[in-house]
Each structure stands twice: as structure tokens, then as C-alpha cells.
């Protein structure tokens, strides 16, 4: 593990961003090779949503990885979170521009009345304050405790994003349910740790 950590120390934030840009770059490449299938808009929309969700899950895995496997990736959590936000934003933008094609009346109606869109939108809105406070300056300004509290929003955001995925399928599909189960398990683990810590902090009663 020390070897891994020594290697990871050499990884700079820009490298994480470069790595994170690969799925988007591949999508752009596929536009030019005509490899996006018969409905390229849906292919792009789906892929961006999928990557956003995967990055959110990756972000949630950082703490458990450190505690359970001793692998410390905490240094990259910010970049992973920012990338998740960028992909969610692109996903949303593709929906507005290429799918709904700026039909604002329909966009407005969908954002408040289609359950799966409302839920995706809520997940997105929760990511906004997180992205806006993803700097050392923000941590200083808010104070570490308040900042941490705010960033607990990742959990409900991830749960909502997974519910969004489950709900947009017309029938029960395996993949979205697997995401939802995984995210719920990660959340449960954190809550359990937290409860134990709480217990440990209160002096044992006789």
C-alpha cells in the first residue's frame, strides 16, 4: 500500500481532470466517426448521465476505501466531485439543447411535473452548492465543520440520481437498481460508522 501511495503522490490534480475528460472526448470522437447509433442524441445524453452517476459513486467510495482497505485517495475527491458536476451539467445541457431543443414551455413543464425529471433536477440542484464550494477558500470561509455538513448533500444527491435512473426505465431493469442498492449500502455504512462514533464519544453508562 505504501508503494501505491508513493505513486499516487506524483499524481497532480490536472491529471485527474485529464483522465476524467476521456469519456467526453470519446463521445466527441464518436460524433465524427458516426459511431453513436441511430439516435446520437440519446446515446450522448445517456452516456453523460451514466458517467456523472459513476463519478458520484466513485466520490462516495473514497472514505470507505480508506477505512476498509487503507487506500487513501482523499486528495482526489474534489476533482472527482467537480467532474461529476461537469458531467451532470453537460447531461442537463444536452437535454435542453439537443433533446428538448430549447422548447422552453415544455422544458419548464417537464422540470416540475415529470417525476423522473424532477428527481434528476433536484439531484443536479444539490450538486450546485457543492461545486461552488469546492475550493480551499470556501472551506476556510465556511469552517471545516459547516463545510463537511454541507457536503453530506452528496448522499441525497446520489440517491436521487439513482432513483432518477430507476424511474426513467419503463420497467424494472437490473442496472439502475444495482446503482441504487450500491449507493444505499454506502450511505448505510457511513451512517453506521457515524452512529458507532457517536456511541464511542458518549461515556458508557453503567
Amino acid at each position, binding site marked *: 500500500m505504501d508503494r501505491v501511495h508513493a505513486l499516487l503522490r506524483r499524481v497532480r490534480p490536472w491529471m485527474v481532470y485529464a483522465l476524467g475528460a476521456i469519456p467526453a472526448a470519446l463521445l466527441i470522437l464518436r460524433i465524427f466517426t458516426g459511431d453513436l447509433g441511430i*439516435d446520437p442524441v440519446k446515446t450522448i445524453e445517456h452516456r453523460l448521465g451514466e458517467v456523472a452517476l459513476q463519478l458520484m459513486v466513485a466520490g462516495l467510495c473514497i472514505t470507505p476505501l480508506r477505512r476498509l482497505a487503507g487506500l487513501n485517495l482523499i486528495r482526489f475527491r474534489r476533482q472527482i466531485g467537480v467532474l461529476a458536476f461537469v458531467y451532470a451539467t453537460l447531461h442537463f445541457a444536452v437535454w435542453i439543447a439537443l433533446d*428538448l431543443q430549447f422548447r422552453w414551455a415544455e422544458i419548464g*413543464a417537464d422540470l416540475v411535473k415529470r417525476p423522473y425529471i424532477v428527481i434528476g433536477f433536484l439531484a443536479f440542484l444539490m450538486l450546485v452548492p457543492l461545486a461552488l464550494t469546492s475550493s480551499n477558500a470556501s472551506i476556510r470561509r465556511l469552517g471545516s465543520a459547516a463545510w463537511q455538513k454541507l457536503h453530506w448533500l452528496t448522499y441525497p444527491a446520489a440517491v436521487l440520481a439513482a432513483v432518477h435512473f430507476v424511474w426513467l426505465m419503463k420497467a424494472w431493469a437490473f442496472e439502475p437498481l444495482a446503482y441504487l442498492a450500491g449507493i444505499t449500502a454506502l450511505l448505510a455504512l457511513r451512517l453506521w460508522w457515524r452512529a458507532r462514533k457517536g456511541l464511542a464519544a458518549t461515556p458508557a453508562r453503567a
Partner: protein
Amino acid sequence: MSNRWNTGLNWSDVTPERHWLNRRALLAGAAGAGALALAGAAEARIAAKPSPYSTDAAPNTLEDITGYNNFYEFGYDKSDPARHAGGLTIAPWSVKIDGLVDKPGDYALDDLTKGIALEERIYRFRCVEAWSMVIPWIGFPLAALLDRVGVQPGAKYVAFESLARPDEMPGVKAGLLDWPYREGLRIDEAMNPLTILATGLYGEAMPRQNGAPIRLVVPWKYGFKSAKSLVRISLTDTQPRTTWQGLQPREYGFYANVNPEVDHPRWSQASERRIGGGLFAKRVDTIKFNGYGEYVASLYAGQDLAKDY
């Protein structure tokens, strides 16, 4: 009627032969080795009269039509049918006709359709997921078949059942829906001249992923009403229960007429994206009854379509 545009030519007549050859190669490829006989038959190209009911809009390419399908018997993804339908056995094929008919029975497909003239019907096709295509079907009015088997006076509805064969249909094996797929029409809808049983498209026998060898096409309703690979047609006096109604009664009604005024909880039905335009496939306004109102609106006189969705 918009047949002032109708020149008496099939769409196939004005499509360059080069494209036809490509299509044939594609079809044969998609159909797999078992379909050699069929591909052979397709060489002769199915003879079909043009129809005044055809739209003058340009059809989607065969690649679009055979590569983008909702056919959950083969999987959820729209590319699954093209991938997995190749091994479907479509000959021999028989259709059970039962219920309130004079001549019930298990009919071999050929016997059932023998002598009925085929027509080319270029129809708009609108999916409930708010996308659409234009498809040059080949088929004949359902009414012709119903007349042949003799509909009894008490019959008020027609129920359709699709093939559910787990060893050839991965989506059936995986239990993706409550199989077999079931659909239904009211008798007057079934008898409407727009309602056809299609056995081909683009001048060729029906590709497997589009519902070979015979499927329903009801162009003023959302695509899921047009059941594929039919194995049973029953005349009933009660409204049949359909697959989607069973799964989500609040989302899918029995009528499922294309209607921008009646919202689906999941998709706005105000507009649709025309597949085939690539990245910039244009979104256009959806027309009530998918633009077929002049032929079918009268069927629903006095009915509240927001209630009977």
C-alpha cells in the same frame, strides 16, 4: 385526402437500386443464416399496390427502421432486437384465431393470407417515448382477415397476442415483462381501413426485429399498440387487458391514441423527435391522432379522450 401527391409509384420505385441492393444485403445479414430462403424470396421483391393512405413524407432509412426498435422480447435496449432477433424461427408460423368468430382455428400463415392483395402503406410511426419515424410497410387491412374468418355480432373487441418463445427471445427468458405481450383494439378501430397487418417493409419480407412474420400496425396510436410477431387473434365481448396496462395502469390506457393534449406522466406528448436526423434530429409538434384525424377522429365522437387515454 392528401393523395394529390400520390403518383402511383411505390417509394421503392424512386429509391436508387444501389440502395435497394444495400438494403437487401443488410436484411440478409440481419436475418442470419436461417433466412436464406426468405432472402431468396425477397430477391423477387414483394409486389404491393401503392395506397392513398400513404404519407408523402420521406421514409426513414432501412438502417433506422431495423436498428432502432422497442421489442422487449429481445431486450430493453433499442439495439437489442437487431442483435438478438436473427435466430427467431418464423417458418412454419401459425396464428390461432378464436373467440367470437365463425371459423376459429389454428391457421398456417400462408393459408390465412392467401389471395389477399398486399399494399404499400407509408405511415408515420409515433412512439410513446416521443420519437417518430416514417415507415413504408407492406400489408393488408386487418378487416380483410377478419371478414375472412367471420366476425360474430357479439364481438366488440379484438385481442392480439405476440410470440413468447424463451429459447429464442432473451427478453422473454429474462422475464422483462409479463409475457406473452398482449394488445387490443375496439372492433371499429380494428375494422378501420388504416389498421393493417404488415408482413413486410421496404418491399421485403418483414425483418425479424420489426415483428416478423406478421404484425399489427395502427398508425394513429402509440407504437406499443402495434403488436409484433402475432400468434393469436381473439374476438371478445369484453375489453382485453393489455400488457402495459397491467404493468402501469396509470400510464398506459387501452386507447393510447397519439394526442398532444393528453399528457403521459412520463413524457410530454406535445412534440416528438424525428429519428434519422443524426445529432440534430428535429423536434416537431405532435399532431392529434398522429395526423390521421380525418380518418379516425369520428371513432371517438362523444368520448372524453383525457379519460379514455
